[in-house]
């Protein structure tokens, strides 16, 4: 049971040029407590945590930490200060050095003596591992560990530095449902041992499962703190966006039409020669249908999309769009045949940050007569008009189409990309992680847009790491594991459960049903 308050943040205010990131925030943490911090992107969660971890300095306000039984004000100059006061942070993006072993990663920067005494370190770490239940092989390169295991290493790092207070920043974003459950077991165990945890998440059902108290942030303010007993998912969502959100967006009833996309025996080589990232994959999508692809990231989803979209040459098999074989055609031809694509990594693929919105609005279609006379001389007035249409129709918040993309917030950038891809003539929409890194408001907006697409009889291929999203949107779900679609689930009436998908995401019943024949690239019978 939670005990006394061990951390108090009082009136924390942080201003950035033009933005009030934290507005007089009061936040506290009790002993043996999991305190969840939720809020949209840009609500100020990260800023608050960076202040607590010594990365930022507050403009106003004080942090108190319990030292020798009483709360004392402290000032953190840097993370080392924070660590010394027992605060540890597990970042969303792991801070591990590949090429070093687990044990080396754990003690890095905190070695027991100048000549590294591995034996003492190992003893300490093993003690922590048995106490917390965090078991990881210590003598292997961290690179070979699974994502879940790497996260454990991150938590071990923090515990090794004697942290009492753990900040977990979106820890479940990269985990499968099963791994998430294991993480929760560990969190509960750490709690019992006297640790306190600040748990940052987007996923409301997880927050409801793990948290003792929940604080909701919105636009730089902490709007409400409540014990779990008073919280419901709907209430949290409402507090987050300021108005009730229908996360359960109604699915339009559309009878599937002709087959738009057909993928036959597609085999695609990964970046490592000889290893097939996609292995004999076949499926089809009809007009007005949303086909979801589930899977732990790195099981061939990215390569599958790249092969369909013409960025990667398939080794074998066919991609057929509206009866026409487009296998191995270049991207601009494939786009012309009616394929739109919302890329998974917006900054890497979807936009040119220094370019204006106008320039970003025509990507992939910039050679069309509408945007360039003879395909060469650019028609700036048409381009501007086109960009303005997207901006208006998709509610992108910007003063004009002449500002650089980098000036927009992430959610608005994504809205712009989604809007652009929807606006071009197309029959097939490939949506990869369409709501990654956007807030609930934008998320709902994008869901509605995808359903609108469905109503327009487009075929939609949806790849997402967010199971809730897949289950909400998809008519059928193909689960990818080691380059194969090992299971196709009918979700027409939303009857599939996350557990079911999760089961197949980890390889499921491959052994029992298929006799263990064709798993992975190497042992094809």
């Amino acid at each position, binding site marked *: 049971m939670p005990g006394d308050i061990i951390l108090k943040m009082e009136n924390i205010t942080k201003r950035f040029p033009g933005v009030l990131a934290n507005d007089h925030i009061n936040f506290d943490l009790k002993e043996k407590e999991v305190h969840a911090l939720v809020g949209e992107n840009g609500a100020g969660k990260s800023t608050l945590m960076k202040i607590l971890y010594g990365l930022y300095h507050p403009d106003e306000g004080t942090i108190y930490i319990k030292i020798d039984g009483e709360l004392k004000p402290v000032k953190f100059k840097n993370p080392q200060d924070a660590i010394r006061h027992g605060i540890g942070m597990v970042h969303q993006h792991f801070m591990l050095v590949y090429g070093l072993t687990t044990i080396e990663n754990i003690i890095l920067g905190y070695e027991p003596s100048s000549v590294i005494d591995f034996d003492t370190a190992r003893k300490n770490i093993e003690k922590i591992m048995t106490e917390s239940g965090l078991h990881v092989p210590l003598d292997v390169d961290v690179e070979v560990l699974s994502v879940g295991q790497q996260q454990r290493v991150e938590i071990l790092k923090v515990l090794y530095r004697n942290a009492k207070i753990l900040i977990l920043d979106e820890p479940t974003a990269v985990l499968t449902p099963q791994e998430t459950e294991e993480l929760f077991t560990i969190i509960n165990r750490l709690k019992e041992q006297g640790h306190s945890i600040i748990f940052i998440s987007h996923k409301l059902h997880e927050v409801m499962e793990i948290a003792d108290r929940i604080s909701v942030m919105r636009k730089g303010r902490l709007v409400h703190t409540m014990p779990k007993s008073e919280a419901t998912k709907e209430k949290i969502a409402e507090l987050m966006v300021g108005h009730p959100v229908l996360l359960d967006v109604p699915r339009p009833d559309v009878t599937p039409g002709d087959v738009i996309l057909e993928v036959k025996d597609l085999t695609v080589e990964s970046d490592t020669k000889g290893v097939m990232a996609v292995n004999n994959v076949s499926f089809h999508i009809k007009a007005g249908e949303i086909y979801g692809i589930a899977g732990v990231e790195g099981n061939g989803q990215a390569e599958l999309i790249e092969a369909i979209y013409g960025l990667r040459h398939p080794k074998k098999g066919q991609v057929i769009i509206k009866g026409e074989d487009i296998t191995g055609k270049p991207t601009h031809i494939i786009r012309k045949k009616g394929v739109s694509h919302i890329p998974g990594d917006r900054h890497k693929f979807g936009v040119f940050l220094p370019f204006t919105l106008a320039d970003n609005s025509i990507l992939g279609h910039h050679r069309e007569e509408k945007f360039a006379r003879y395909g060469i001389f650019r028609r700036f007035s048409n381009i501007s008009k086109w960009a303005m249409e997207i901006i208006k129709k998709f509610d992108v918040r910007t*003063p004009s189409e002449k500002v650089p993309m980098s000036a927009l917030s992430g959610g608005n950038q994504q809205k712009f990309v989604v809007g652009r891809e929807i606006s071009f003539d197309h029959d097939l929409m490939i949506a990869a992680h369409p709501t990654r890194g956007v807030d609930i408001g934008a998320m709902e907006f994008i869901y509605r847009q995808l359903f609108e697409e469905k109503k327009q009889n487009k075929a939609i291929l949806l790849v997402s790491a967010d199971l809730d999203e897949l289950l909400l949107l998809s008519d059928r779900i193909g689960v990818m594991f080691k380059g194969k679609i090992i299971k196709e689930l009918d979700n027409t009436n939303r009857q599939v459960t996350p557990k079911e998908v999760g089961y197949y995401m980890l390889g499921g019943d491959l052994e029992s049903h298929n006799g263990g024949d064709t798993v992975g690239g190497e042992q094809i019978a």
Partner: protein
Amino acid sequence: MNKLPKKKTNNFKYFLLSLVAPVVGIVISALLLFFLILLIRKGSISDTLYAFRVMGKTLTSTKDLGYIIARAEPLAISGIAAAIAFRAGVFNIGTEGQYYIGGLVASIYAIYFSIKSPAFHWLNVIFVVLFAMLGGALWALIPAILKMKKGVHEVITTIMMNQIAYTTAKYFVNGPLSGVKVGESLEPKTLDFPPSVTFHKLYDIFHGHFPFPKYIPLYESLFIAAILIFIVYIIIFYTNWGFEIEMLGTNPNAAKYSGVPPRLVVFNAMLWSGAIAGLINLQEIFGIKGYYTHHMTSGLGFDGIAVALIGYNNPIGVVLAALLFGFLRTAGYNLQFELGIPNSTMDLITGFIIIVMVIASVAMNRYISKLRRKEVLSGAGDR
């Protein structure tokens, strides 16, 4: 919704802000120059002030202005050549070798294949331009193919090609093309070009209505440079070729996603950069000298890289930067002549301008993007 004028002034504001860095670079460098001269003249303030007056005079005398333009011309072409590659994210360090070979190929045309009738002078000039571009492109071809097919880094290959270019030029001048006659000068050179090919002086073309004295080395090649810069400007800012080059230089992944074949665009940018580099020294070869020799002004290619850097890879910026270089050189000669201040002082100052400008522009870019974000955030409610 009437915010069109506001938009324009805003973009103008950002344009002005982007000029801060070069101005800061020049001002701080001028200060440094002041102290350097003070040091060289053993603390004599009056001498130092006089030196600055000499530099000021460089900008007012027609003779010096003529020299500034003449010296800026090859640098501007060189800057443009480098800028095209830079915009695509390619480092063409080989402009140096490319102008040696461009000049060589054009010279072979001039000596053996040109039309001897003076009536066809303009046709000859056009062919000289085409062959110079061909030669430059040819020299860029090997690094471009290696880059496209095997991903070999162009910095390494182009630097090596520079060395080969110089020795190739030397071989041709001393061997097959040698035009040194017994009893004449010992300077290795080719045969003189026929008069129907060599570039005319602008002074002669304008029949004395030209503002600069006759001895200023300004030739028809100035037209070539002007036309080139105009065309490149149009291509960069008004065509999809320029747009795709810019895409690739900014974010190759997003370019690929947009259906732009990255290798092909890099290949083309490299070739065009080389082709333009072939034109760099036509002024000296076909104007001043009238024959080809490997003993011509060297380093124009490397200077062009600096010019492109200071000019933000923008054709207009490149022209301004080239004029700045022309000014610094001309002023440097005058300082040496009048006060015995070593000419290399100016090279030092040039380098310093670049360093200060790069630092200032990093800071300015950060400031500008902050300002932009702020504007978008505050303006977000308007709509």
